[in-house]
């Protein structure tokens, strides 16, 4: 078994994994906030629409959602994936990655939105009212007073969710995206050894280890006040 070849292939897969992780975080974090506001909206139709979407997404497997996203072009628009890839001027495997990313972003936005909502609703009304009687604007109250407290509250649940995200990236394989896990799995057959899978496990461990340290650091930084 050629270790350097195995590692190189794993690193390529790892690149895809990290890309999916980053794209999901960058898009789902703000989208989740929008969903959270939607689910707290005073306008009932919006509120129930968003709540229903969040409920559906959280109640069904992510793997199913990934497959559904990949069916959308054909079953909704009657476009073959190949033609869509041509139209978008991307390779098929890039298009598959985009499908996976879309499913991940929507899925994680829904989970994040619930975390945001819980945190926002747990901020005492008195904080808003104190801001109001000091003549602050709604935006100032949210960004200067509430948001920081929300941020501190979401850190712990977010760190759980984000560590889960790292492991969920392995689901990208259902559309043939060669992420870390898929790369390892493919190689098991080539090198006739389980070692690639073990190596992949170490990659995940190290990645999540770094994230855990980072969140621990942030939580410590944020612990300077009590409510």
């Amino acid at each position, binding site marked *: 078994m050629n270790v350097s070849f195995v590692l190189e292939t794993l690193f390529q897969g790892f690149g895809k994994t990290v890309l999916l992780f980053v794209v999901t975080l960058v898009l789902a974090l703000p989208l989740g906030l929008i969903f959270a506001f939607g689910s707290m909206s005073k306008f009932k139709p919006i509120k129930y629409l968003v709540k229903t979407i969040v409920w559906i997404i959280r109640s069904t497997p992510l793997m199913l959602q990934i497959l559904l996203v990949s069916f959308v072009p054909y079953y909704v628009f009657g476009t073959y994936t190949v033609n869509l890839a041509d139209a978008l001027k991307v390779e098929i495997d890039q298009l598959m990655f985009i499908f996976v990313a879309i499913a991940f972003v929507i899925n994680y936005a829904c989970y994040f939105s619930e975390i945001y909502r819980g945190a926002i609703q747990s901020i*005492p009304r*008195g904080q808003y009212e104190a801001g*109001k009687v*000091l*003549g*602050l604007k709604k935006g100032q109250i949210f960004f200067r007073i509430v948001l920081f407290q929300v941020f*501190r509250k979401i850190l712990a649940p977010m760190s759980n969710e984000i560590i889960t995200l790292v492991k969920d990236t392995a689901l990208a394989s259902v559309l043939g995206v060669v992420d870390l896990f898929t790369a390892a799995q493919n190689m098991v057959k080539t090198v006739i050894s389980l070692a690639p899978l073990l190596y992949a496990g170490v990659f995940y461990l190290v990645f999540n280890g770094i994230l855990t340290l980072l969140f621990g650091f942030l939580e410590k930084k944020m612990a300077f006040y009590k*409510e």
Partner: protein
Amino acid sequence: MAYLTIDNFNKNFGKTVVLQGINFSMEKGEVVSIIGSSGSGKTTLLRCINFLETPDTGKMTLDGEVLFDSSIEKKDTEGALRTKRLNFGLVFQSFNLFPQYKVLKNIMLAPLLMLDERCKKYRRRLTVVALENVLKLKTKRAEKNADSDKEILDIVGADDGETVKSFKRVAALIRKYRSEEKSKIANEANELLAKIGLSEKKDNYPCELSGGQCQRVAIARALALSPKILCFDEPTSALDPELTSEVLKVIRSLKGDDRTMLIVTHEMEFAKNVSDKIIFMADGVVEEMGSPKDIFENPQSEKLKNFLSKSKENNNDESIKE
């Protein structure tokens, strides 16, 4: 005409009638206390006055200006509401300090944000002028904005004859104005801290203070915006008895500065000593109103007599405990 006039305030929450035809007025520099058993609508009244709730009907006038009038259909914009709120300060029973900011920042936050907002507005106007200049646009807007431009120049301290067209210089003036105002705000906040006797706590977080100290900071925070009338909603009710007096002392010292104050309190001794006028509320109405002497020594209504004898009992209970 009185300084503050509340005229026929009515407020329901669903089917619960909370305020029924509240009328009273107070003069500038007066201290008015509101007493009454819990559930009588005292908090709701303060919240209506501070625009945290909207009365169903009624009218409020402050310093000759009608701030609220339910007979006018038009609803206030968010901005108008904010301006109106600034006439009043409100100290909450539960302090509501901002936990992530140090004591000094708690006091300075609102004035700083307001300064920032003002400077942002000036800079935006300046950008428009600069753009018009570069693009050689001569618009009617210039005339329309003449007054506000003059105001900007006045406030930032431009020389006579200068116009917003010398935008580089005006931008520099705005920067200078901002930093001067900032240090003014800091100075005022420090003075307020000295006044409430907490100068040495300015770099502490609220969680590091006792309840009494928190409430004193909350008072300073409200004072930093120089409200015309400072309202208190049971400022000592959340405090251990031994911390009550330090807060009351601060409030009493404000009376010495001729502050106009409206105080909801259960501290009868304090109300008696500090107030010019006392309002007794029961079941959403002003049951009795008068000087401390009238209220405490010569109560008229049965409800007030009952309330006073009950609160005396409570007081005795407490002194026995101690």
